[in-house]
């Protein structure tokens, strides 16, 4: 525990140090990044010790804040979540040290490092805090630190708007969490997690508050509207950390809530499955509609959080209906996807950041053919794309497979209490997988393959070592997690036990029904690689003494094929967007060619976020209109404001004393 606290102090201290020496950008970068990496490594050491069987260590200090106590504890659940938090943050810090160098002419580099390290430290504290007040303070620090990181490039209007949206959204979520803790603490008389006990009647209300509060941070639809604004606006290493791990603190909060509110009823599982479906399908559909690569990745995060929610949903259903296989496999899939998504999404954001930084644009319709100039970045992006679509032999396949297997166990078990969610999960997850494949083939193909659509790509170049190394390590992580899946899934037993409330040996026996097939999966993956090598060798042998010429792409006789003849990203997605038009509500403006010699024609489509457009904007406009009618109260005459105070005072006195 002391080691972890020491790591936190090191993070904050190095942040301060970075600010004090920001006159020299090189040293500022070096201090900030090395402090972050050192702190993360120390923390990982502490988490590893906890996960390998050391008993839960805790620290409890008194605090004058009413209801508060500095109570931190490291149990297996916290240790499990610390791994992605610290691992990805360390790699993002290394990436950021080179990425930020390109801003050193026009901006001070002290604040981004200070807030980055503060963000990591606050995320660590969120995961180990065991007192409501401490938790909320750490939550708020996390929100503020990330706000300042998101608005780093605040010369641009969009970034400022995005920052405001993010700030409002996160505070609305925190308001729900405040209500949650107040209600829970009032019933139990204390805000320490181990002393919170809740009556069953209140549990449902508390669960709903937790779903909204933590769901806003995690990115459940329809609370996700801040995600597509904030993640593109932030610098790439910050987007990676936000999308990869900050969203997961919301998931952590939800799982911790489930452990506090024991014995869930079945409708909680239904709710989580419903949220998972809506987020998953909605997220990937909107990702298909985006031109900005980072906005697309943000929507894809919404989709993956939906998949995690599906896993948690069937896990909760399993606990509620007393089918242990369902519970174990659902939670295993959901929790493993937390780690997998952190690795894969971190990698995607870092790669997209490299491309955007090298070419100067985030618009995929201006890119194309980047693979030839950025082979490493292209290769790792491909690995990440395969992983995020849940295809073997990489890590994304393992977590989706676990969730599928859980749903299948649910479908073959007798009884029908879990019938509809299981049906929805199998069908929904299959649809999400297909749509994700569409989305990421589009992204990879339009950005890296084909020919360049504009001259932005001529400026593309591979980034330096500090930016390439984290990407390579994350790609290796994808492959390794996929290859060592049986061991890793087996090792999840204590974590799942603490999340579901079952006993570890019971969980371990049910997990065997997943780890044994996983061994076959790993062997199949190995077989796949062997066959690929054999076929490639065969082809090389066949072509050895023949001519392999280079020609033009077949162009149906057009003598001058141009880059504009390629399929654009919008065209690629158009059939799917048309099919799901009722969900996307794409606005379209067409100027059709007119006359015999048409001069110009255009087609403009815009797909704003449907929740923002149809739900939040009208609500906020209505609130604004309602409050404007009260504007006559604000006339600017100070002495009348004093009159308001005096009248209130008198009324209160008369009322209370009369």
């Amino acid at each position: 525990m002391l080691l972890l606290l020491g790591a936190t102090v090191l993070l904050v201290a190095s942040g301060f140090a970075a600010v004090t020496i920001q006159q020299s950008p090189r040293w500022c970068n070096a201090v900030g990044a090395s402090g972050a990496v050192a702190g993360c490594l120390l923390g990982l050491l502490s988490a590893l010790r906890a996960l390998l069987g050391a008993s839960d260590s805790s620290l409890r200090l008194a605090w004058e804040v009413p209801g508060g106590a500095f109570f931190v504890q490291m149990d297996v659940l916290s240790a499990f979540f610390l791994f992605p938090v610290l691992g990805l943050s360390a790699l993002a810090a290394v990436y950021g040290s080179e990425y930020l160098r390109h801003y050193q002419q026009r901006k001070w580099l002290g604040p981004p490092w200070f807030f980055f390290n503060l963000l990591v430290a606050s995320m660590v504290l969120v995961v180990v805090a065991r007192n409501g007040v401490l938790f909320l303070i750490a939550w708020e620090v996390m929100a503020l630190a990330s706000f300042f990181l998101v608005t780093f490039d605040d010369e641009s209007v969009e970034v400022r708007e995005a920052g405001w949206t993010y700030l409002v959204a996160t505070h609305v979520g925190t308001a729900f969490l405040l209500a949650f803790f107040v209600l829970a603490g009032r019933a139990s008389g204390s805000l320490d997690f181990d002393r919170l006990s809740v009556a069953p009647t209140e549990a449902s209300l508390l669960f709903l508050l937790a779903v909204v509060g933590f769901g806003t941070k995690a990115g459940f639809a329809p609370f996700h509207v801040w995600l597509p604004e904030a993640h593109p606006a932030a610098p790439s290493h910050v987007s990676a950390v936000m999308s990869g791990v900050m969203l997961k603190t919301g998931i952590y909060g939800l799982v911790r809530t489930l452990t506090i509110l024991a014995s869930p009823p079945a409708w909680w599982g239904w709710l989580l499955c419903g949220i998972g479906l809506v987020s998953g399908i909605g997220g990937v559909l909107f990702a298909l509609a985006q031109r900005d690569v980072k906005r697309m990745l943000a929507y894809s995060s919404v989709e993956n959080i939906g998949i995690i929610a599906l896993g948690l949903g069937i896990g909760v259903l399993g606990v509620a209906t007393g089918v242990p296989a369902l519970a174990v496999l659902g939670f295993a899939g959901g929790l493993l996807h937390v780690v997998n998504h952190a690795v894969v999404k971190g990698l995607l954001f870092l790669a997209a950041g490299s491309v955007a930084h090298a070419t100067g644009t985030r618009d995929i319709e201006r890119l194309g053919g980047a693979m030839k100039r950025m082979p490493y970045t292209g290769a790792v992006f491909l690995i990440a794309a395969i992983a995020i679509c849940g295809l073997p032999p990489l890590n994304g396949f393992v977590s989706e497979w676990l969730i599928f297997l859980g749903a299948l166990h649910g479908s073959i078990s007798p009884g029908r209490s879990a019938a509809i969610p299981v049906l929805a999960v199998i069908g929904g997850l299959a649809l999400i997988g297909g749509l994700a494949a569409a989305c990421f083939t589009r992204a990879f193909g339009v950005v890296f393959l084909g020919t360049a659509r504009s001259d932005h790509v001529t400026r593309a170049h591979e980034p330096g070592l500090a930016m390439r190394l984290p990407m390579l390590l994350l790609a290796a992580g994808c492959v390794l997690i996929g290859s060592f899946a049986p061991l890793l899934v087996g090792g999840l037993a204590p974590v799942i036990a603490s999340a579901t409330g079952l006993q570890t040996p019971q969980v371990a026996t049910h997990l065997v029904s997943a780890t044994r097939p996983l061994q076959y999966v790993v062997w199949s993956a190995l077989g796949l690689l062997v066959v690929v090598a054999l076929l490639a060798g065969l082809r090389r042998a066949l072509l050895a003494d023949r001519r392999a010429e280079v020609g033009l792409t077949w162009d149906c006789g057009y003598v001058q094929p141009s880059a504009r003849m390629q399929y654009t990203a919008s065209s690629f997605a158009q059939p799917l967007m048309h099919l799901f038009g009722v969900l996307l509500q794409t606005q379209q403006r067409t100027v059709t060619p007119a006359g015999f010699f048409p001069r110009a024609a255009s087609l403009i489509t815009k797909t704003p976020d449907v929740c923002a457009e149809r739900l939040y904007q009208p609500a906020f406009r209505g609130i604004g209109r309602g409050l404007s009618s009260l504007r006559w109260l604000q006339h600017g005459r100070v002495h009348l404001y004093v009159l308001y105070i005096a009248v209130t005072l008198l009324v209160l006195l008369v009322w209370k004393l009369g």
Partner: protein
Amino acid sequence: MSLAPFVHLLLALVCAPLLFSVINRTKAMIAGRDGQVLLQPYYDLAKLLKKGAVYSGTTTWVFRAGPVVGLAALLVATALVPFGGRAAPVAFAGDLILFASLLGLLRFFTVIAALDTGSSFEGMGASREVTFSALAEPALLLGLAAVARQTGSLSLSTMYAGVDLDTWVVAAPVFALLAGALLVVFLAENARIPVDDPTTHLELTMIHEVMVLDHGGPDLAFILYASALKLWLLGMLLVGLVVPVRTANPWLDGGAATAGMIGVAILTGIIESCMARWRLTRVPQLLVAASVLSALALALMLR
């Protein structure tokens, strides 16, 4: 360790291209022609393997990797599919998901190889391919989940081993629904009419054919062989369901399965002769209908 599973592997690997000639012969017979010789696909493959290759300057290593990875995925998938009610070489709980994902891997690499050429034709095919397969995935997985539920097992081998005459008597309506859904998936994934027309080479009407337009030589041989294998594998899933011959005699079961496979090929030929390709905007309706059939079957069983 018995040799039976590997017999199927060998049978699939050797006989898959025959399905093409069966289908084509059927269509020819219905049209009043003689049609190609039965071994024609093998001659085509041999011809292609003997050729050189021309690669477009726009392409990268992804284009060269596409056919290789795709065929490898299908070869691994072949080891998962049971034959005649006997176990496949590789069988474990949840292998149906691996099967569907391997098909997804094939699709992924075919699509990015198509996008690598920078041509509008391949892009068009790729776009339609991802649309239709996104809609077909739920149909396939829900259908397999329904079979899993009926037979109470989670591995393709044990699932199909459990589909015998008794099970059919009990669950006939459900299995009929499933057979319809799996037939639609079979036609859609293998680019058969009414989803796609494998015989024309008009770019605007194709989905699968146009995605491989720029491949030639050994690459095209790999792709052609992979299409044959896909026909065999998806067909075998359908045959395993509708031919519930599960006796103790492996030769009888194997013979029934092979006959069923040929029957499916002939059925495909008949369908292709009697129908025209549907308008592209109607194809999603067909696929959604297949998903609904599968979901209905599963729901009826979960009741």
